[in-house]
């Protein structure tokens, strides 16, 4: 306590210095006076009295200095001195300061930005109450070994009742349902939920009421709750929405309430409806699509839950075997935290990004170190003088560290704006479904991190220069001349810059390769004409009832044919066709039990999945895909006539070994007796990359859309002008005849292709940013080193010019020095890049990791920019006036 009081007193003594000094002087004077008087009384002369008094005091100044040390906090006071001096020095050298601050701003800024992103996505807990205790569940079963599944409804019940580690659990099942009856038909994300869903989540309604337990049991009046966003967009937030009827997939629901703004579980749900326990879904033990969210009891651990789940898994497996004995396979129910389930996949990617950003920061620090070292040489006389005047090595070291930290803090301050810009860039280029993207923003942690980062960088960068300063002895003062030239240039500093250049080279090479990959992907010809194409889905209502399948198929086909005719008549439409599923979205259907006629026996029955599509007549013509043999589907290919098929080149070659397969047959179904139903092949189409751009075309077969009932329809329209402009017209035309037909996923083909390369685009963009930063920083380093070398060699240059060197010679000399540095760095960088780009190998397309053209381009770029970086100092060197230079001693 007493010590604390003392500390406070010393701290406050830093203020009001003058008054205290006066008081100290007064007290010393008074002491001496009293002592002198006593001495006089003892008989000494005035002179003796004075001398004795001063000697007993131990010297006035010494006594005062001891007092001062006790009074204030000497450490702080000298620190302030150093700080003031350091800032003055920085102000005197604006060029140096600006270079250093800029470098650090880039390094610290980008690091802060990445940290902010990593913090928001991976480190911070989710923004739900008690989110650290929330878990979700996964199922792995031998029935579908390739998939990560979710629990079934019976599994959910078991978890809820038997897992004692779990306090509460809710289940939801999200699906798309067609909304008709109010306004434009649309497809809504509907979540079917368990009882006590809203209660367990602690949700409150924004209007009306939320689902209650009694809603689970009623069999006639289905009720629904809207999301706040849906209420706004479809009902204009009007209270009259309550009581309105929604028709979802031909079933009537009455709206009873609206969820609170910001309530988003499941994340994209727009409507919540209850799932009664009696419904099929709730009874089905193989419906592995239920999303279960549970909260752990306080004190229960994830491990205890996993143990309980193991027991439940066994139980469920036994029950499953009883009910469906032909479905065998291990059943494994596991839990993971909600945070993990959301971000696990992206964790690695972000951490790699952070590593790259740290690399850029290290480059910046290296830059600062080399700049400080270079400048240190110019100031070594000043430092030696200070050492001679009594500064301890610790003090000298501290001076340098204070300067480097001040620079770093200035850089950090500027870096905050860089960080803000960086976060904006990230939000712009990240694919929209990036986990927790909406939580990435600027907040106070940014500033704290920038502060910490700056301090660390300053200390790190200042280490080597500080050590060198501390080793200076006063003998340096007596050494003649500051620079007999580059006899011992700051080798360490130059080496650092060379390494910086190498690192920047690696980043630049990687970026070039990624950008090329992106370009290659975007310009890859998928095998069909991609211009002026507008595509959209026409979702069909799901058919759970097998008996009605045929009649529904007929009405579906009639509707589609009508739509095609109607839309085809529109003036902006050049051509159109239909299929069951769009291209380039990575999804495909395949049938089981495909049989081929006319192939060697071992290939006749196919077990692997082959891509299949259902096409309307004229599809290939419209897309500009040539036919190698035979014909397209025609209008005459309708049910119940002979069913026909088309195969692509790849399929023909792979299974029949020839393109002449017209007339052969393929079967994808069996009749009631189990005999194969055959479809005759009428044509062979050219290969098309219709799953994704990167893959080689696979074997595919096509069936006639008008001969089958399918789950969805997809329209592809070739427009005469801008495809986007036609969206409204087409929609209205379709709704004129079929007001309850929703249109979804309206896209142009160019946008679809751009989306498929979303990941590559983000990587290329980010890598380009880092490469640019790294390059800037490294070249600033080159500029700095060459600059200071010129400054120190002023005398030498003067001598040379006096001895007859021309401006050109001087220019060559300086450029040589700078370019040697850059070349050395490029050389090291080339070797490093050879190894480093292998990391990217899996992401590349159309270029090899050691693509010689890219490497050459980067080398040339670095040399050119290196020249530019050297040009300014070189110009200064050329302008040296020999007379002035020689005058400097």
């Amino acid at each position: 306590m007493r010590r604390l009081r003392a500390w406070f007193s010393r701290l406050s003594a830093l203020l009001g210095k003058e008054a205290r000094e006066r008081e100290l002087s007064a007290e010393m004077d008074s002491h001496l006076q009293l002592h002198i008087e006593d001495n006089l009384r003892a008989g000494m002369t005035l002179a003796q009295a004075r001398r004795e008094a001063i000697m007993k005091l131990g010297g006035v100044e010494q006594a005062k200095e001891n007092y001062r040390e006790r009074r204030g906090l000497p450490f702080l006071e000298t620190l302030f001195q150093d700080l003031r001096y350091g800032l003055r020095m920085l102000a005197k050298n604006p060029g140096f300061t600006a270079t250093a601050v800029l470098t650090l701003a880039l390094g610290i800024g980008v690091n802060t930005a990445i940290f902010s992103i990593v913090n928001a996505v991976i480190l911070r807990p989710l923004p739900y109450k008690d989110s650290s205790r929330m878990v979700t569940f996964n199922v792995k079963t031998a029935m579908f070994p390739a998939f990560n599944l979710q629990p079934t409804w019976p599994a959910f019940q078991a978890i809820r009742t038997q897992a004692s580690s779990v306090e509460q659990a809710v289940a939801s099942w999200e699906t798309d349902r067609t909304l008709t009856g109010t306004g434009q038909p649309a497809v809504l994300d509907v979540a079917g939920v368990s009882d006590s869903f809203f209660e367990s989540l602690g949700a409150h309604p924004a209007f009306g009421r939320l689902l209650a337990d009694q809603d689970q049991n009623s069999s006639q009046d289905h009720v629904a709750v809207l999301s706040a966003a849906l209420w706004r967009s479809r009902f204009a937030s009007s209270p009259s929405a309550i009581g309105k009827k929604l028709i979802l997939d031909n079933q009537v629901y009455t709206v009873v309430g609206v969820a609170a703004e910001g309530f988003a579980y499941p994340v994209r749900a727009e409507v919540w409806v209850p799932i009664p326990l009696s419904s099929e879904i709730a009874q089905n033990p193989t419906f592995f699509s239920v999303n279960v969210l549970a909260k752990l009891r306080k004190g229960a651990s994830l491990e205890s839950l996993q143990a309980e789940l193991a027991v439940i898994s066994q139980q469920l497996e036994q029950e499953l075997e009883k009910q469906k004995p032909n479905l065998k396979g291990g059943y494994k129910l596991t839990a993971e935290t909600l945070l993990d389930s959301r971000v696990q996949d992206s964790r690695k990617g972000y951490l790699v990004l952070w590593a790259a950003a740290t690399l850029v920061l290290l480059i910046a620090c290296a830059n600062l170190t080399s700049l400080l070292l270079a400048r240190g040489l110019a100031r070594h006389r000043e430092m030696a003088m200070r050492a001679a005047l009594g500064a301890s090595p610790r003090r000298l070291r501290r001076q340098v560290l204070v300067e480097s930290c001040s620079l770093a803090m200035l850089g950090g301050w500027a870096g905050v704006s860089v960080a803000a810009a960086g976060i904006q860039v990230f939000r712009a280029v990240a694919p929209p479904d990036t986990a927790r993207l909406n939580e990435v923003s600027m907040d106070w942690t940014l500033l704290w991190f920038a502060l910490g980062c700056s301090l660390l960088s300053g200390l790190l960068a200042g280490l080597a220069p500080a050590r060198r300063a501390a080793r200076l002895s006063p003998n340096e003062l007596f050494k003649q001349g500051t620079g007999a030239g580059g006899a011992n240039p700051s080798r360490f500093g130059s080496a650092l810059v060379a390494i910086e250049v190498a690192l920047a080279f690696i980043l630049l090479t990687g970026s070039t390769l990624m950008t090329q990959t992106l370009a290659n992907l975007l310009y890859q010809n998928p095998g069909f004409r991609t211009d002026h194409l507008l595509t959209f889905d026409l979702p069909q209502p799901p058919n759970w009832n097998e008996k009605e399948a045929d009649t529904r198929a007929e009405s579906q086909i009639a509707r589609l044919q009508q739509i095609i005719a109607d839309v085809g008549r529109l003036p902006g439409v050049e051509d159109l066709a239909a299929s069951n599923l769009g291209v380039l979205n990575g999804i495909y259907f395949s049938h089981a039990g495909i049989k081929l006629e006319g192939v060697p026996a071992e290939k006749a029955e196919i077990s692997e999945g082959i891509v299949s599509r259902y096409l309307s007549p004229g599809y290939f013509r419209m897309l500009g895909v040539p036919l190698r043999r035979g014909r397209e589907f025609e209008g005459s290919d309708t049910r119940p006539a002979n069913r026909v098929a088309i195969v692509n080149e790849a399929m023909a070659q792979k299974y029949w070994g020839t393109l002449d397969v017209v007339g052969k047959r393929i079967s994808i179904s069996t009749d009631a007796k189990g005999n194969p139903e055959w479809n005759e092949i009428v044509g062979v189409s050219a290969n098309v990359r219709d799953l994704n751009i990167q893959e080689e075309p696979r074997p595919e077969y096509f069936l006639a859309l008008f001969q089958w009932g399918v789950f969805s329809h997809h329209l592809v329209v070739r427009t005469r002008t801008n495809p986007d402009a036609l969206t409204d017209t087409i929609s209205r035309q379709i709704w004129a005849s079929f007001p309850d037909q929703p249109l979804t996923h309206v896209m142009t083909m160019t946008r679809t292709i751009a989306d498929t390369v979303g990941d590559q685009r983000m990587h290329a963009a980010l890598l380009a940013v880092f490469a640019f930063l790294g390059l800037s920083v490294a070249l600033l380093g080159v500029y700095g080193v060459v600059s200071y070398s010129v400054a120190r060699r002023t005398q030498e240059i003067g001598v040379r010019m006096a001895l007859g060197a021309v401006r050109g010679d001087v220019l060559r000399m300086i450029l040589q020095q700078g370019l040697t540095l850059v070349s050395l760095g490029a050389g090291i960088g080339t070797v490093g890049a050879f190894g480093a780009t292998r990391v990217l190998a899996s992401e590349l397309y159309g270029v090899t990791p050691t693509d010689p053209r890219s490497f050459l381009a980067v080398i040339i770029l670095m040399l050119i920019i290196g020249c530019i970086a050297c040009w300014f100092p070189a110009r200064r060197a050329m302008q040296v006036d020999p007379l002035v230079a020689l005058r400097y001693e």
Partner: protein
Amino acid sequence: MGDKAADKKDVWQGTLALMVLKTLQAMGPQHGYGIARRIEQTSGDLLAVNYGTLYPALLKLEQEGYISSEWGVSDNNRKAKYYKLTRAGRKQLNKEEREWEQTTAILARFLAPGEESS
């Protein structure tokens, strides 16, 4: 200046502080010079006190709240800064006195010729 010297300085400063407190208790309020003079006398002139070290010690005691200071006038009409003991100082003095007595008593048993053969 090695560690040993620093230790000695600390011990010396601690002892000096105690002497100052005791002096102020005995003499009442006194100025710096007077305290220094008195300490010399009390120690029987065995201690050659460097008066310059007294003032930092006085400052420390003041910072810790054991003494307080105020400007006054001496007998010869000289302005001087007088120091006096605070209540906390009194308590601290008593405490340290007791501790010293204890220490010396224990040491005495060790250092005095005792029953155990040595």
